[in-house]
C-alpha cells in the first residue's frame, strides 16, 4: 500500500504536537500540584516563625535565612571568577589551545553531579580545612558548582556587545581595560545579571551538595561558621522522614514560587537585552 506523504505529515505533526503538549502539561501539573496543596499552609507566620518539634509545627524562618546566606556567599565568590574568565576568553585572547582547555574545564565542571561536589566540599572544607558543617563550607561548595553557568552566560553576553563599541572606544585612545570596564561590561550587564539570577535559582534548589557541607542544624545561624539548614534540605528531611506533610507542602510551595519569580525575572531581563542588540 502506497503511503500518502501528506497524510503521514498530518499524523506525525499531530503526534509531535501531542508530545510537546504532554511536556508542557507535566510542567503545569507539577507547579499546580505543589502550589494548590502548599500555598494554603504558607502565611506570614510560616515565613517568620522558627520551626518547632523538628519542623512538625511552626515555620521555616531559619531555613530562609540559611538559604539566603549560602546563596549570597556562592554568588559573591563565583561572580568575579566567572565574569573574569568570560572577559579573558572574549576580550584578551584568540581561540587557541589555551582557550580550548579553559572551556573544556568549565564544561566538565558543569557536568559533575552535585553529589560529587558535596563529597568534595565535605572532605576539603568540612574536614581538611576544619570549617565544619557551616554556611562558609556550603557557600564555597555552591560557588564551585555555579561557576560554569556564570562563565557561559557572561561569555555570551559579552560576545553580543557590538564590535563597534570597542572600536570607537579604542579609537578614542582608551586602553583595553578602560574599554572593557567602561564600555563592554556596562553594555553586557543585563546579560551577565541573567546568568547570576539563574545561578541563584540553582543554589536555592540544591540539596545534595549542601546537606554534606552546610549540615542540617535547625537553629538560626549566627555566623559564617554555624551549621545551617536550607529550605531545600528542610523540605527533603520533612518529606523523607515523614515529619509533617503539610509543612513539607508549604516549604515546597515557597521553593517553587521563588524559582518561578527567578525565572520570570531572568527571562524578562534577557529579553530586553536581546531586543537592545538585534
Amino acid at each position: 500500500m502506497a503511503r500518502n506523504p501528506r497524510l503521514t505529515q498530518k499524523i506525525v505533526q499531530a503526534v509531535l504536537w501531542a508530545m510537546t503538549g504532554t511536556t508542557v502539561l507535566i510542567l503545569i501539573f507539577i507547579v499546580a500540584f505543589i502550589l494548590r496543596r502548599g500555598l494554603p499552609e504558607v502565611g506570614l507566620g510560616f515565613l517568620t516563625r522558627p520551626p518547632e518539634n523538628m519542623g512538625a509545627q511552626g515555620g521555616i524562618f531559619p531555613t530562609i535565612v540559611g538559604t539566603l546566606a549560602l546563596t549570597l556567599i556562592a554568588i559573591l565568590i563565583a561572580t568575579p571568577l566567572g565574569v573574569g574568565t568570560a572577559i579573558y576568553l572574549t576580550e584578551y585572547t584568540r581561540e587557541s589551545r589555551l582557550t580550548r582547555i579553559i572551556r573544556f574545564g568549565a564544561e566538565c565542571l558543569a557536568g559533575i553531579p552535585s553529589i560529587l561536589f558535596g563529597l568534595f566540599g565535605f572532605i576539603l572544607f568540612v574536614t581538611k580545612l576544619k570549617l565544619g558543617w557551616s554556611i562558609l563550607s556550603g557557600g564555597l561548595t555552591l560557588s564551585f558548582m555555579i561557576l560554569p553557568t556564570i562563565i557561559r552566560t557572561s561569555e555570551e553576553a559579552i560576545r553580543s556587545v557590538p564590535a563597534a563599541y570597542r572600536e570607537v572606544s579604542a579609537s578614542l585612545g582608551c586602553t583595553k581595560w578602560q574599554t572593557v570596564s567602561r564600555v563592554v561590561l556596562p553594555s553586557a550587564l543585563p546579560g551577565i545579571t541573567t546568568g547570576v539570577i539563574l545561578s541563584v535559582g540553582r543554589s536555592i534548589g540544591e540539596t545534595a551538595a549542601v546537606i554534606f557541607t552546610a549540615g542540617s542544624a535547625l537553629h538560626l545561624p549566627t555566623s559564617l561558621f554555624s551549621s545551617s539548614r536550607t529550605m531545600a534540605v528542610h523540605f527533603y528531611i520533612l518529606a523523607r522522614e515523614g515529619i509533617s506533610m503539610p509543612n513539607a507542602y508549604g516549604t515546597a510551595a515557597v521553593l517553587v514560587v521563588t524559582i518561578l519569580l527567578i525565572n520570570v525575572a531572568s527571562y524578562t531581563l534577557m529579553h530586553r537585552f536581546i531586543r537592545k542588540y538585534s
Partner: protein
Amino acid sequence: MTRLERNDRLVRLALLMIAFSAVSILIVITVFIFSEGTPVMFRHGPGRFLLGLDWYPSEKAFGLLPMIVGSFVVTAGALLVGVPLGLACAVVLTQFASKRMGRILKPAIELLAGIPSVVYGFIGIVVIVPLIRDNLGGPGLSVLAAAIVLGIMILPTVISISVDAFQAVPSAYREGSIALGATVWQTIHMVLLPAARSGIVAAVILGMGRAIGETMAVIMIAGNAAAIPGSPLAPVRTLTSNIALEMGYASGEHREALFATGVILFVIIMALNTLANRASSRRKG
C-alpha cells in the same frame, strides 16, 4: 600613559589567572576524590569493588556491581522516556511552532530545568509511586518510578541541545528539500535528522550524564535496595544514592568505600562528557 599601560598589563595577568579557576577547581576535585577513594579499592582489589555483588559495609564487603547496574538500568529507562519526548519538543520548537508559540514553550522548558530535584522526588513519592503500586503491584518505589521521574528531569538538557543541533543545520538544506516537493516531515526525517545527528547524539549523552548524576530525586523514589533489580517494579540503588544514603554516618573504611563509589561515578561522567564533546565537535569540524 605608562601607568595606564602597566595597569593594563596587570589586569591581563589577573584575568589570565582567574580564567584558570574552573580548570583548577576541576583538578582539585579530581585529586581529592581520587586520593580518598582509590586506596581502599586497591587494598581490597578493584575487581571485588567493581564486580562484587554484596554491599555489607559493616562486614567490609564493598561490592558495587548492583549500584553500577542500577545506575545504568535507571538511566536507560530515563532515556526511553526523555529522548522521544525531548526530540519531539525540539522538532516542534524549531519546525512547527510559530514565533509566538515558541515564546511560550521556551520559558516553560527552562522552568522545568529550574525546578529543584527534591521537588521532582516529592512528586514521585506522592503521585507516581502510589500509581505504580496500585496499578502494577510491587512496592511502587522502583526502577520504573525512577525512570519516569528522571526521564522528565533530563528533558530540558535533551531539548536545549537538540534545538541547537537543529538550528545549526543550514536553512538551505530545508529550503532545498521543500522546493523538491518533500513534505515537512519528509524533510525532517530525511534531511534535518541526519544533518543534526551528531548534535542529537551529544544531547542524548549529556541527558544520560544528567540522569546518572541525579541524586536526591532518585533516593526518594527508587527504593534503594542494594541488589540488582529483577524487574522494572523492583527497588534499585544507584551509585549516587549509595553515597548520599550512607555519607551521613559512615566512617573509616566505609567512608572511603563511599568515595570509591564517587570515583566510579566520576569516571563514568567524565567518559560521557568526553564523548559528548567529541560528538558535537565533529559537527563543527
